[in-house]
């Protein structure tokens, strides 16, 4: 334990993890209530193609992934707006396209299997100092934009039509939410991996929705559940010698099941 706490690797993982938890905990509540829980999952597939491109070009995979993921997010919005499609069809199309492109790019170069694996399954204990800063900046952008638009987002999520009449810039905020999700997905790639990043956008928020009586406490609970999942997940993975990403998601699942059973006892804090 002392050895763990003395290690720079551990602290880097923890700090980056907490920034991720903050972004996911807050953003997740809005996404779940907007019935966009799967958008993180879809965008993570797009992020995969960005990573593959970065590795192929041998140029800053995370930054390339961020650019590609934002582009994918814009495409989803464009198709949604102009494609006359139902529900999350646009998401399904772009996410498949991202995955297909990623697989193609991976096949074009041999030898980045190990590096790419670390992004597929996450490698929170291999976080560099640069990546900690990257996560801090992205998380800060998410928090600031959600704070500035807090009331408008609540209004439009609760009653979209009336928010429109009140002059809320609903379309711009829709776009902002998709772009913030794209950023958060990229933020989570190295920490929990492509395959599990969407879990942190959905599970803590869903757990919070079971117990919190109002919006503010839902955001607080969701962020708290994210923090607990990340911290406990890292410790458990160290003690049990298991992958951190899987442990983080398991902890969040336990919290979710716990809130489901305690649903009737609403929080009174």
């Amino acid at each position, binding site marked *: 334990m002392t050895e763990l706490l003395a290690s720079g690797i551990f602290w880097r993982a923890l700090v980056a993890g907490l920034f991720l938890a903050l972004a996911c905990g807050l953003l997740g509540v809005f996404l779940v209530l907007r019935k966009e829980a799967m958008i993180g999952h879809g965008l993570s597939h797009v992020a995969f193609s960005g990573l593959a491109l970065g590795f192929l070009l041998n140029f800053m995979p995370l930054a390339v992934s961020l650019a590609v993921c934002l582009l994918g997010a814009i495409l989803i919005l464009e198709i949604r707006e102009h494609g006359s499609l139902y529900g999350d069809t646009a998401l399904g199309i772009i996410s498949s396209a991202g995955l297909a492109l990623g697989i193609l790019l991976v096949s074009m170069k041999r030898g980045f299997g190990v590096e790419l694996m670390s992004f597929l399954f996450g490698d929170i204990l291999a976080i560099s100092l640069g990546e900690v800063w990257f996560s801090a900046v992205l998380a800060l952008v998410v928090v600031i934009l959600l704070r500035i638009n807090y*009331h408008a987002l609540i209004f439009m999520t609760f009653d979209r039509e*009336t928010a429109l009449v009140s*002059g809320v810039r609903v379309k711009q905020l829709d776009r902002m939410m998709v772009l913030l999700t794209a950023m958060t997905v990229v933020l989570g790639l190295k920490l929990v991996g492509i395959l599990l990043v969407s879990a942190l956008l959905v599970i803590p928020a869903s757990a919070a929705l079971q117990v919190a009586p109002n919006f503010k406490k839902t955001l607080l609970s969701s962020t708290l559940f994210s923090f607990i999942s990340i911290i406990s997940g890292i410790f458990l993975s160290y003690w049990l010698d298991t992958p951190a990403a899987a442990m983080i998601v398991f902890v969040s699942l336990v919290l979710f099941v716990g809130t489901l059973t305690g649903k009737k006892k609403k929080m009174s804090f």
Partner: protein
Amino acid sequence: MSAEEGVIMTVQEEIIRVKEVSFYYDSIPALEDINLSVVRGDFLAIIGPNGSGKTTLLKLMVGLLKPASGQIFLFGQEIENFRDWHRIGYIQQKAINFDPHFPISVEEVISSSLNSNPKIRNKFKSNQKQRIMDSLATVGLEKLIDRPINTLSGGQQQRVLIARALVTEPEILLLDEPTTGVDLKAQEEFYDLLGRLNREYHLTIVLVTHDFGIVNRHVNKVACLNQKLVYHGQHEEFCSSSVVQEFLKGGHHLVSHRH
């Protein structure tokens, strides 16, 4: 603003003016050549059978839909240039049929509207809590400020939405079948409240309803719609006109159903 519009605003106090408006869903006409005006202090009921274009007309009036032809003026300004949306309170159809799991308190419902855009936030930034309390007191719900909205009855939820509309001190309220799904007693209380807001607070009200009977004693003007404007005028004249007979033939309800 042209001189003509200025006269409209100051002399006639015309709050809404619908001028030769038509609207189509794809190529199917929903409204044809509608001319209608709402003057300050009016309590106007827009009535008509299902599919007559009542909701469409209300959505055109608040800018949610754009007319295929014709113009709409709000407070003398063309709707495209109108920005003072806090002067308008809107309550949509089935407004209370929101997500029952949505975690939001009564206070948050109202404060989210009060802070929803910079213009409204700056105008009402002082004493926000008191403003929220006052708007809740107007609808008789000040004690429920901290309650999650999904724990209130349908009638109470409806009144919270009125309080949300009132908090930005609007000059007109537009409501679309606001009591759908609310029991009859709560409906009567709700329309009594609207009548009181109209008389005591001089709030102009436009109400879309298919059940004219229950609002009958509160309104002073009636617009009767069936794609075209069949009647638009004073309430008393409407009740004695032949339009009433025509509407009864069409199965339209002029008296409320008591189940």
